């Protein structure tokens, strides 16, 4: 009885949603986006790790290779009517491409509209992680970044040289 009485004097946690919007931290797990690297190019390299990590298997994509040598998703589909917003995909992603956002307001009358394709997912910014650019770190050569220009790489070896 006493406990209940006590509670009547504590401040209420409930807010008058939707008139009043609660504060959601950036790491809140809501609608998923695909982000771009600091140079403005698609971050996702279609490695398929997010899809493999996804518990309800609601991510499907197909890899392709662009003219400039980058791997990219030919299509990238998330079925949000299955997604449980667990954030495993974000955790699995080696390029910081896939990120969850604090937006959770994505109800639809029609389940079909819950299926998001790449054009719905891809945003124009870097999301939460501003600096990471996978191709600057890894050794795969692409147009504009040759062998030897990735992080911590020496210039390509001249295989014909016998010098130490």
């Amino acid at each position, binding site marked *: 009885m006493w406990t209940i009485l006590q509670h009547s004097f504590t401040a209420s946690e409930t807010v008058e949603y939707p008139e009043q919007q609660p504060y959601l931290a950036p790491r809140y797990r809501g609608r998923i986006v695909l982000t771009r690297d600091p140079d403005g190019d698609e971050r996702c390299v279609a490695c398929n790790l997010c899809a493999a990590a996804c518990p309800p*298997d609601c991510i499907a994509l197909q890899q392709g290779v662009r003219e400039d040598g980058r791997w990219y998703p030919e299509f990238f589909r998330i079925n949000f009517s299955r997604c449980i917003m667990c954030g495993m995909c974000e955790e699995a992603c080696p390029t910081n491409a896939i990120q969850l956002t604090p937006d959770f307001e994505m109800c639809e009358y029609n389940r079909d509209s819950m299926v998001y394709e790449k054009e719905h997912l891809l945003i124009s910014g870097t999301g939460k992680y501003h600096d990471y650019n996978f191709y600057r770190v*890894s050794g795969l050569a692409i147009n504009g970044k040759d062998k030897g220009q990735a992080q911590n790489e*020496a210039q*390509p*070896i001249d295989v014909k040289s*016998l010098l130490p």
Partner: protein
Amino acid sequence: MPVIQIDGQEYEVEAGQNVLQAALSLGLDLPYFCWHPAMGSIGACRQCAVVQYLNADDDRGRIVMGCMTPVADGAIFSLEGDKARGFRESIVEALMLNHPHDCPVCAEGGECHLQDMTVMVGHRDRHYRGKKNTHRNQYLGPLINHEMNRCITCYRCTRFYRDYAGGTDLAAMAAHDHIYFGRHEEGVLQSEFAGNLVEVCPTGVFTDKTLVKEYTRKWDLQSAPSVCTGCAVGCNTMPGERYGKLKRVHNRFNAEVNGYFLCDRGRFGAGFVNSDKNLEFPGLRLTDGRFDALDHHAALMRMTTACHSGKVAGIGSPRASVESNYLLRLLVGAKNFAPGFSDAEQPLVELAFSLQQNSPALTPDIQTIESADAVLVLGEDLTNTAPRIALALRQSVRNKAYEMAAELRLQSWQDAAIRNLAQTMRSPLFIATTANTRLDDITEDRVSLSPDNIASLGFAIASLIAGEPVDEIDQALLRRAEVIATALRGAQRPLVLSGTSCGSAVVMQAAAQISQALCKADNRSMLSLVVPEANSLGQAMLTGATAPTLSALSKRAAAKEFDTLIVVENDLYRRGPKEIVDALLANIPNVIVIDSMDNPTLSASSLALPAASFAESEGTLVSMEGRAQRHFPVFVPAHERRSSWVWLLACMKELEIEEVSNLHHFDDVTRACASQIVALSGITGAAPDHHFRNVGVKVPRQTHRYSGRTAMHANISVHEPKQPTDEESPLAFSMEGLNRSQPGSLLPYVWAPGWNSNQSLNKFQSEVGAPLKGGTAGARLLLPTAGSVNRGMHKSNFTSAKLQSGQWIMVPRYRIFGSEELSAKAPAIAELVDSGFVEINNVCAQSLGVIEGDGVELQRADPQVQSDMLKAPVATLQVRINDTLAEGCVGYSAGLSGTEDIIVGEPLALQKAQGWQRPSPQIIGTDGGSNV
């Protein structure tokens, strides 16, 4: 068997093994890179370190390499000891110093042995602060991708490519830590087995270029046990599919057939399954020649109506399954059923079957071929007609080396030591063909002869072995025959290889006689006859020697004997001269063609039915060694595509044919065929039937990590469809079931905890390198007829065709890429297919006044007219000079475009072509090595 102690536990192990083999066979996890079960040990990577203790009192021990240390009774080892663990971890760290950190964009990722081993040893952080070495990549052709930075210098690639497969254009180059594995300059890898680098390389240096273009990770592939349809060898494969497309073909281990390796035709040639020329709906030809799409039922009704009259002829196909051919033969009746060979080929394949069936010699599988210690090849260019056997012969010549090693009590896995010991000593391999072959570098003697002379040589060898008088032949030939006869007689396991490819029955008969003479002498010999296609032998077994030929059917068609012709999976224009096929098709009002892809025969049909390709259907194929093997659908065919047997069975049910009233499933057809056709009675043993369950459940086609199930079809409908059910096999189109310990014929993929790469195979083998736990796939239908040595040897009682001056015998020159119909349509292979050509030797070139690149016209003399003036042009082709061609022979590119009308072995006149445009030199594309 020696007993060794590993980490305090005693184990009984196989004598002669090394510690790594023993540990893996016991199911223990010991990391390794450079050792390969088929290639032995060289101790290059230092990854398999274990601690060996001198005796029970020794508590320090010393580090030894597991793969270089033989097991010995009482030896004490530790895999887990800190010393070994720490050492192995530091080795991975060292190997990874220059690793480019690009797993997400690496086609090996998810099935990478380096990833697996790194996780197994627990390495995590890179401590080295210096810069990473980098390399430029090379363009290695349309099949293989190169990303040199991922290399860990295990030397597996060069050991496979050079030592195992005899390639010369890939090597370890440069000095110290600049070491580079590639070609001396960019260009297409020349070995026909280069594709195996994809599986042999434990990292992502060599990957499958056809897969990288539209990549899918291993865990996302839906796979099924399948059989290569590239040639008659019947290698076992595991094709993988995603989103309705065949993505790649991997090797499926079969200890007796392909072992660990495929040829490039098999690995990259299945791309035709995705062709945009695929037929998706039944088509009915309209009067204006176009096709109108029909639904399945309407097409079936049309087919049934066409068959009602009973005057139906059928043409099967040596590339279609036993079951489809059996049903077609049942539908039309044996006397109206042509097996679908060309006129020249049909008696040859039938002969190949009867020779092997009645031979006292063993028909060897590939494993047995590898054990041969003297080999004679008559008339076959194996690398291009049965590639995997050429690879096996490269191993057979090493038996001499193993013999020498055994004398010194060296274990057979001491690869480097044995190669050093043997140097160029080889077991004898003799080849008599019409021109050079890709095996010439390992032969003791190769001689170019015309087919008739090959036969004469063969008969002489047989006579010498049997101790009978030799027919009169050329002295030089006789001396050769003596050398070969002595070598064969002196061997423990002599093998004679021949086949249909040079178009000569006497060559095969000569081969059979040699093996028979050997058997008579001491009852040991092997005889292997190569036939052209995946189910050629099965077709001969089905029809026997009395089946009508194509031209026999054509004649009867001209007499209006038939209302309807059903052609199953066969392009007749590849089987006979155009006029004959045109006439055949024109003389029968209803031509029903069941095939998977558009081709000229299909375009000439009145009703076209879409067949499922090998990757979408089940079927039994009989390989050249008489092994019946089952392939299972990898994925459900799209649209109205159905297996040929399904179309035929449905039609026969509509016709209420008595014999099929009890046939409902694929297995019922197999069983009916086995009970009706004596030679095929063993085919039910090829794989378990659809009732089989693996510990109560089916075998899954999808891995347990198969992703995207609830999204892959969501663009069509968000309501997920039910997983397709498979009523015809013990495999499931889902991830549910058990992929462990099932029969070898039901292995869709290999995976084991901690082992994501193809090296997980060792968890499926009874011991490393040995047959699968569930048994070897396939049922042998040809067994040697015990002791029945045929006395009445027909000697060389053949008369060679007399050539008129200005005529040459046409001998086929096969190409691994292009000679086979379907694989040549795979986009990656198509890049490597030449246009048709003739090969002539210098004598011929001089007499014609042509040089390389000129054109020649081939002309057939009109048999009716005995005049030189009346010759019909057969083909005009580009000239290649090949001075190894036998005297009097002209080679033509069999199976390539422009050579369809040439009949094997016929004499043709040649003439320099007028107005021939010399082709401009080919430019080989390069991507500068920077991309992908």
